């Protein structure tokens, strides 16, 4: 194929506006990114639209408006979209996938050739349920317009019927001069934020074209928590239940850290693990019990049974940790099973409190290479050994791990997996993850709703509720006219068995938000669909073959119905035909964490731009070393 160099003069593409409009109603965020550019050149040229969206978000819409004509993306089943893509390739048209990713975000990019003196408007919409971490919700908007923009605006409206407890905003690019431009209005249940610098205010210096707007814009907030039962909102036949009671006492926990010290952990990774564990061990509460297992092809326990997290024991463990050295192969199976044995023995021998929460935190950077290496057998072994009695959290260090294996294994055992990125902040990532799970408040949390009243419930059992997080359950009401129903939440608390009972009632949104006739209509239904799809996708990975097939079919149906780009669907975008190029098909996919391997800090920006030169990257260079070989003819 001939590669044609595009000659583009960026000065001849004027980015006229970039607008990011985010509306949040009850944690469900709906963001619209719009960008308009004008090709001022007297020849046609390629215009790029590259934006980043959070990994947890689903794209719901994409459109391009060129000279009054609108081209809209269509969500299709992935396989069908792929066929369309292949068809485009086989008929000689250029076609490409639209996907990329970063640590927290993933990239959507598209380029279109537009005629001389033409305008183009790109609009991308995505939705996500904001998750509560460390007692706050976070909206992150990445902006990198790369050039000065005539009309640049970030606007956010937050509607929280529970009332906004606090709201903070900051941006990595905010200078003292830009700070007053961030306008923030917070009333009881409503917040409005805007940031709209003029061309001059965007400039890096008075006479230059460089822009200051380059970085992340954060909004962090929390809602008021008054009732033990949590907050239940009923809208148009759907309900959502947010549960994160205040003032619960922490449960004692029993935790075994299972640390990979195989050869590949040597160097920085081992050093960072040791450093993180020093702090993590210090952060254990005195009533906690803990154990440490390190493994390569040999399994080494710090102590054969759990120890109370007394200062003396913690200090002894810290000395043990200091001396962990990386060598050998990776035997994940036996290491995790040993941790299960230790926790099981502690529970059986009643050396730990009856109301305590047991968990295993596995840290590994590679595939199993010793002992049992079949991933399915390992998953089965671990699932059978754990038997629902404890949670397993897996931390995959770096990119060589089979993340999908860790993810499924964690989900099968009421836990979750997290990737730890190899970087200077790996210590903070490890500590951060531990902090998230360090304080279980409740265990065995059951949500009960009258069976004759609700249906299509998302998950209603949760192994644990952690401090600073929130459990969300959603469902449909059997009768759209229904305005109230009974709710009960029961769980094991620190002191007593926790039971909260009450009546859910529909609120009148027009009374709560009288000036806001429209928020975004069916958001409770979409929130329910979003949550259901997320849970079905989890189920798809961890269930029996039949469950997997059913979950996949159901998730696909919902993705198509609600226009979500999920790992099962793709958005097919048709680029218009021009004099130089035929009609072109592009496909936007949703990546799974497993597919994100290898991409750490992509160069991404929000808005439209002209292309920059691509510099080939060299991953390995053996400068003058000859490649000598011997082979057959």
């Amino acid at each position, binding site marked *: 194929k001939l590669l044609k160099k595009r000659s583009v003069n960026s000065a001849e593409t004027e980015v006229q506006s970039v607008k990011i409009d985010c509306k949040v109603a009850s944690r469900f965020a709906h963001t619209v990114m719009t960008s308009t550019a004008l090709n001022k050149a007297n020849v046609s040229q390629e215009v790029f639209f590259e934006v980043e969206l959070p990994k947890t978000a689903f794209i719901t819409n994409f459109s391009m408006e060129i000279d009054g004509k609108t081209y809209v993306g269509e969500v299709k089943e992935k396989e069908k979209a792929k066929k369309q893509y292949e068809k485009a390739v086989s008929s000689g048209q250029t076609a490409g996938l639209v996907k990329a990713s970063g640590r927290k975000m993933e990239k959507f990019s598209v380029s279109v050739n537009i005629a001389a003196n033409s305008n183009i408007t790109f609009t991308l919409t995505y939705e996500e349920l904001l998750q509560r971490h460390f007692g706050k919700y976070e909206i992150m908007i990445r902006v990198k317009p790369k050039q000065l923009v005539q009309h640049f605006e970030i606007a956010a409206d937050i509607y929280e019927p529970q009332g906004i407890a606090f709201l903070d905003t900051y941006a990595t690019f905010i200078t003292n001069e830009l700070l007053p431009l961030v306008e923030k209005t917070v009333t009881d249940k409503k917040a409005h934020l805007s940031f709209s610098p003029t061309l001059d205010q965007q400039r890096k210096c008075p006479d230059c074209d460089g822009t200051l707007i380059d970085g992340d814009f954060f909004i962090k907030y929390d809602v008021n928590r008054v009732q033990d039962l949590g907050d239940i909102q009923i809208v148009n036949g759907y309900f959502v239940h947010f549960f994160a009671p205040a003032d619960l006492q922490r449960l004692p926990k029993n935790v075994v850290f299972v640390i990979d010290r*195989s*050869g590949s952990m040597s160097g920085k990774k081992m050093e960072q693990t040791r450093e993180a564990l020093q702090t993590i061990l210090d952060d254990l509460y005195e009533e906690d019990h803990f154990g440490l297992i390190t493994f390569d092809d040999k399994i080494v326990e710090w102590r054969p049974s759990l120890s109370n997290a007394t200062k003396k024991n913690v200090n002894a463990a810290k000395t043990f940790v200091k001396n962990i050295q990386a060598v050998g*192969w990776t035997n994940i199976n036996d290491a995790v099973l040993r941790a299960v044995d230790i926790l099981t023995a502690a529970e059986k021998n009643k050396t730990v409190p009856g109301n305590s929460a047991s968990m295993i935190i596995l840290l590994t950077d*590679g595939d199993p290479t010793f002992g049992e290496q079949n991933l399915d057998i390992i998953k089965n072994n671990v699932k059978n050994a754990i038997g629902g009695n404890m949670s397993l959290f897996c931390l995959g260090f770096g990119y060589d791990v089979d993340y999908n294996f860790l993810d499924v294994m964690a989900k099968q055992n009421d836990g979750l997996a997290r990737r730890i990125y190899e970087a200077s902040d790996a210590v903070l990532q490890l500590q951060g993850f531990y902090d998230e799970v360090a304080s279980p408040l409740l265990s065995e949390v059951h949500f009960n709703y009258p069976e004759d009243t609700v249906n299509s419930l998302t998950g209603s059992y949760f192994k644990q509720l952690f401090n600073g997080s929130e459990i969300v359950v959603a469902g449909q009401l059997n009768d759209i006219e229904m305005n109230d129903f009974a709710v009960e939440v029961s769980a094991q608390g620190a002191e007593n068995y926790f039971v909260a009972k009450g009546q859910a009632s529909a609120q009148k949104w027009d009374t709560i938000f009288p000036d806001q006739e429209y928020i975004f209509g069916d958001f409770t239904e979409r929130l329910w669909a979003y949550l259901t799809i997320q849970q079905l996708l989890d189920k798809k990975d961890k269930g029996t073959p039949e469950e997997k097939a059913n979950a996949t079919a159901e998730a696909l149906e919902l993705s198509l119905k609600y226009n979500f780009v999920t790992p099962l669907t793709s958005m097919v975008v048709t680029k218009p035909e021009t004099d130089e190029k035929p009609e072109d098909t592009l496909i936007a996919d949703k990546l799974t964490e497993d597919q994100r391997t290898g991409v750490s800090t992509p160069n991404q920006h929000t808005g439209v731009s002209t292309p920059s030169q691509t510099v080939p990257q060299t991953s390995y260079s*053996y400068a*003058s070393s*000859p490649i000598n070989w*011997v*082979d057959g003819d």
Partner: protein
Amino acid sequence: PHFIIELPDKNDALCFNINDKPGTIFNLVKDPLTGTVVNGQTIGDKKVNPASKENTYFGRFGIIHEKFGIRLMVSTQEILVSEHGKQAKLFWSDNTSVKGLNMDLQVTKDRSLTVTLRNSVKFVIILHKVWKKHPYHQDYLGFYTLDSHLFSRRVNGLLGQFYHGVQFEVSEPFAGKDVDKPDAFMFVKGHRLLVTRGWQKDFRNDVKNGENVPCWFIHNNGTGLIDGDLTDYTVSGLF
């Protein structure tokens, strides 16, 4: 098997064939300072095509790194690894990645094995899968050194002796026996050799078809180019 010696400084390559009885074990690399040894055992065709001469290929490689206590036996069937007495078996049929303290192995299913010995050497072994029912040919292996700059000056072997380059001059080419392949005289290691311009294949990127690499072909088992003669490189065992 055909040998290729790339010489990036000269932007050129040398090549020669080695043919001997199937089953012969050749030393390819021996570095007494790092304790690295690579030996390869040849195999022939299943049966000899009466219309052609018998070709040999490498069917097994034995790799030793004394200092790291590593032994690696790679055949067309399997890969056996031992490190300080611990053993593991890998198969060509799986994508596998093994990370050890001193050695990383990566098997790309039915295709290649990449071996990285820390601070020492990186090489790739290519598996050539042949149709099982082929009347004459069978599976064989190729060995490619990717990084050899850490070998000591004392490294030798059929490949190893070229790791630090080789000095040679080539005369103006002239018409040879084959009209498409000019001949020339090469002055190397005190010898004047008749060499032919041809090409050999690099199978790293395209295991089926390979990519042509132009090279000066040294006839007669590389005689004159390699130090000593072929018998100096035959060894009694893989390890």
